């Protein structure tokens, strides 16, 4: 029996009712994300990229069409999906460790010793060993976002949704975070939907890149990233990757201009 795709969008429309009239956020969006695939979604601002994520997480129902996760239509919020936001949005009063265990505490009202151990493991994995007792504002922006990633992984979700997670970071930190992310997923594969503005980030991290066009948002093109084997800073010099980046950039440019 063939396994259903992890995520499946089938002719999804999304219309928001605003005071000025209906806003067509998404139109006829169809795509699949297979198991343990890293999909980057690239597109101009306001093309409904974040709306996609909210629909996968079950926070938003499509106006028409179908969103499926593991072959089942998404009808309500699901907790087997981790979300990393653009801003870390940590709780300023809670220690780093309490921030990482927040999902389980918030869901069940109780944090076990095992949960705390797991938080420690995750902090070590994202490179924040020994920072568990600090408060978020004692950490740099990049470190805070690492805590955000650890928090999203704490319930061990199969699917990780990342909404421009590194866009608030400086260029160097951003690159390092990207490779750290790949290292984390190499240990523990996840299905990832990664939204970004950055062509190079998308090409470097993803298995496949989905280009969206704006208003109403729809899938403009899909590209498989021609890289095999582990990726590192050298991958950026790969000829196939450079071609893909140029192609993606050109597509985005013409759309922005149009």
């Amino acid at each position, binding site marked *: 029996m063939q396994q259903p795709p992890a995520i499946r969008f089938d002719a999804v429309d999304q219309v928001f009712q605003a005071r000025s009239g209906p806003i067509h956020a998404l139109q006829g969006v169809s795509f699949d994300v297979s198991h343990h695939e890293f999909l980057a979604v690239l597109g101009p601002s306001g093309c409904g990229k974040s709306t996609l994520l909210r629909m996968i997480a079950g926070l938003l129902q499509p106006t028409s069409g179908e969103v499926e996760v593991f072959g089942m239509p998404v009808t309500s919020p699901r907790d087997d999906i981790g979300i990393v936001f653009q*801003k870390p949005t940590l709780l300023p009063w809670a220690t780093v460790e309490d921030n990482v265990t927040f999902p389980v505490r918030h869901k069940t009202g109780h944090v076990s010793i095992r949960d705390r151990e797991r938080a420690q493991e995750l902090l070590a994995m994202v490179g924040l060993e020994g920072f568990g007792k600090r408060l978020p504002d004692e950490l740099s922006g990049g470190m805070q976002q690492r805590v955000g990633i650890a928090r999203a992984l704490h319930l061990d979700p199969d699917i990780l949704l990342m909404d421009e997670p590194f866009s608030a970071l400086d260029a160097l930190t951003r690159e390092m975070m990207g490779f750290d992310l790949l290292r984390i997923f190499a240990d523990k594969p996840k299905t990832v939907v990664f939204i970004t503005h950055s062509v190079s980030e998308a090409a470097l991290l993803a298995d496949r890149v989905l280009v969206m066009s704006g208003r109403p948002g729809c899938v403009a093109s899909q590209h498989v990233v021609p890289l095999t084997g582990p990726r590192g800073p050298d991958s950026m010099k790969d000829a196939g990757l450079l071609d893909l980046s140029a192609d993606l950039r050109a597509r985005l440019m013409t759309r922005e201009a149009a």
Partner: protein
Amino acid sequence: MSQTLPDQPRASVPPAPPARTVPKRPDPRPAAKPAQTVAPSLWSRIPGLTTAATFLTVLLLWEGAVRLFAIPSFLLPAPSAILGSFGAVGPARWATHVWATLRVAVMGFGLATCVAIPLAMVMMRSPFLSKTLYPLLVVVQSTPVVAIAPIIVVALGAGDLPRVVITTLITFFPLVVSTATGLAATPPELIELSRSLSAPARREMTQIRLPYAVPYIFSALRISITLAVIGAVVAEFVASDAGVGYFIQFSTSMFRMPQAWAGLVVLAAMSLILFQAVVLTQKWLFPWSLPKTTR
């Protein structure tokens, strides 16, 4: 406000950096710098020195002016006369009056807090209640409390109750509005996270919204605690037989102006101390809710 918090800037200074490990070599340059830095450090080294000096200067000028121009005491009593009336009244009478005012102010403030925060939570949860209650609150707030006070006293009779109610009325509006603002100011991402976890709404309130509202609640508490003293005094003006407000009114009716001024000083001190107590409570219980420099 800074003159009321003389020790705050000091408290925020981080511990002194560790002593330099580089061995000191004899400095061939002439020591010209220290002479420039000594003068300002005298004022900045002792906390509150500037404030104290300012107050002392004002008091001296005041005393001098009253004596020089022979200002009659009903117009402006000299600081020395005010000070003298402190002793004349005696600690036992002061204690009675201060306790009466303090009791009403704190009870009214406490009641307002206990009503306002749950009310704001309910209004946050229910748009319907918010729509129906908010206009009512605005009407209550727009009615001058001084004007309602006599009515409340007639309705509720003698004793602390009418005074506490008046104090509550005057204090709770900023608390409701500010708490509601704080509850709504939570980052939408965290609310989405909460929803994606299918957490009970109660926990969304206690684990996310309420803590996020703490800075808002405390800025309202600071306003409310000073309003509470005003409320207690207003209530005493209307009907009472004790309290610092009553004492001032009583003193003026007997033309004991220095004594009335002494009451005023006591009221101001009470307000300051209560305000400071709220500030310290926030510092003690919720240090994270303060800007980094004032922790």
